[in-house]
């Protein structure tokens, strides 16, 4: 595949490509189809696309009702509205009855950029992860996203899927034997001194951080944790045992998301230092995506610093 594509772009293409194979798939949007990239599906399959207007809570409820008849609804809006505004509808109307609804949050994280804090969702991974029975998926590139969409179509139950706004480099298609499997992390690179457990766009940044550290004699293992729930506990605990320290990295708050999940697991079952890299407990701000990522320290350089910190803590 190589090249760059936003995960939202890969998602939009996947919906269209999978539509014939999965006739039960229906797509709902809340007046954001041009941004969430469901517009191509809407154009190709107008009778299977339902624009619910600017009313996210109702959209989630409609999807819940539709799912009880055997349809497979994917609801789409920005991450902040999917996981925030409609949180309680997701909890009570979808997850409590364990319905087959896929809640898709586009424009996750701070790389939304210019729109600023009201639209930059750093809490979605934590919010969704806490709901019993919810699956939480955050793919790192276009190839992983494409495979994740089909995996979710074949999973009968509620799930949250996060999409990103900016174009990101596609690299998982070049990993040997790569295949997306719900709940199974991917070892992107081997290493012995510290493990970076990353999710979403931070996985690729971890590859760059690994190169920076290689020159200093620090060997970094990289795990792509695309599924934050259910967490691949075996893979993470193995990394904790073998490398002795873990850095989590996510384009989300350090409170409660992947960092929270890994810290909870490792502290209970294999205590080693866990350093969390992400957005500190703060709101975002406007700027270009790159400027905002830099401002909040979501860079390979900052991640490398966190790795050094984790290695130092081992002593």
């Amino acid at each position: 595949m190589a090249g760059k594509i936003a995960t939202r772009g890969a998602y939009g293409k996947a919906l269209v490509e999978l539509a014939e194979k999965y006739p039960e798939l229906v797509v709902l949007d809340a007046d954001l189809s041009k941004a969430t990239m469901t517009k191509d599906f809407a154009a190709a399959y107008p009778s299977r696309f339902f624009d619910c207007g600017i009313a996210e809570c109702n959209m989630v409820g409609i999807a819940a009702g539709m799912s009880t008849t055997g349809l497979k609804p994917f609801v789409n809006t920005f991450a902040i509205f999917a996981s925030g505004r409609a949180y309680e509808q997701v909890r009570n109307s979808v997850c409590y009855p364990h319905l087959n609804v896929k809640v898709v949050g586009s424009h996750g994280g701070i790389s939304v950029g210019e729109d600023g804090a009201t639209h930059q969702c750093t809490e979605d991974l934590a919010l969704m992860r806490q709901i019993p029975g919810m699956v939480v998926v955050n793919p790192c590139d276009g190839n992983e996203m494409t495979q994740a969409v089909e995996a979710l179509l074949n999973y009968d139950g509620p799930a949250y899927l996060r999409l990103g706004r900016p174009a990101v480099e596609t690299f998982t298609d070049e990993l040997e034997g790569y295949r997306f499997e719900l709940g199974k992390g991917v070892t992107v690179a081997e290493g012995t001194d510290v493990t970076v457990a990353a999710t979403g766009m931070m996985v690729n940044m971890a590859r760059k951080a690994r190169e920076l550290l290689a020159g200093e004699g620090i060997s970094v293992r990289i795990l792509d944790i695309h599924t934050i729930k259910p967490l691949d506990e075996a893979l993470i605990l193995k990394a904790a045992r073998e490398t002795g320290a873990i850095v989590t990295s996510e384009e989300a708050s350090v409170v409660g998301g992947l960092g929270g999940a890994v810290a909870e697991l490792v502290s209970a079952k294999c205590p080693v230092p866990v350093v969390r890299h992400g957005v500190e407990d703060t709101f975002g701000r406007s700027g270009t995506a790159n400027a905002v990522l830099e401002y909040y320290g979501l860079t390979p350089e900052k991640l490398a610093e966190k790795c050094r910190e984790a290695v130092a803590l081992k002593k």
Partner: protein
Amino acid sequence: MEKLYGKDLAIKANQARLLAVEAVHRASSGHPGGSLSCLDALTTLYFNEMRVDPQNPQWAERDRFVLSKGHCAPALYAVLALRGFFPVEELQLLRSIKAHLSGHPDMKYVPGVDMSTGSLGQGLSTAVGMALAAKHTGKTYRTYAICGDGEIQEGQIWEALMAAAKWKLDNLCAFIDVNGLQIDGNTADVMPTEPLDKKLEAFNWHVIKIDGHNYDQILSALAEARNTKGMPTAILMKTVKGKGVSYMENNAGWHGKAPNADEFAIAKAELEAKIKELEEN
């Protein structure tokens, strides 16, 4: 099952009232007031209007029902039990840790419940989804819902109303149980919702106003809803909160309170007398 009418519906509804109040009494918690106000409509739905099969609760072609005012689960559970979805004796385990009859309707565990509800304002959207799915897949089942007149203070209800009109869901029929009371008092004082008929008409719904305790009016409204094309129907039913139990009637205090033994004895005597009177006439 043969459809019930008039007196037979009234007997069934009052049997359901007694079962619902007894279940709340045994549980020492629950919501009798609103359960009693909507029970005539609910009984009419399950014993006359709706195509359901208690032996096959998941039958794909069945008519759907969503109790959007989910706290009135005792009413729904009582009607489902009487209709044969599960044994009537199980009602006495309402809200018990020993059973699955949750305080609010639970589709995962209670046969016949089509949607889990309880958080007010959410049920109507799910009913819209069911009706929309029927249109999409060409199925002929109809979808019914009951909302509370306090519940419609939730903004999501109005989102759902707009959506149902957009997709011309003439296979959807929603009752609004206008009993005029909510936990904090009169609905007109807590947050006025009137003029409800004009509001719903402005949202492009077909609106029918009836007495929610008159079976002929309930049945003719349901027939009118079935014959209304191109738009969803709302049945605004004026009801008495606590209907059928003298001391509960029109008393907001009985919204979410269980009768004690003495109080239940009075309710039982009144409802049994009513049933006997109906049976003898």
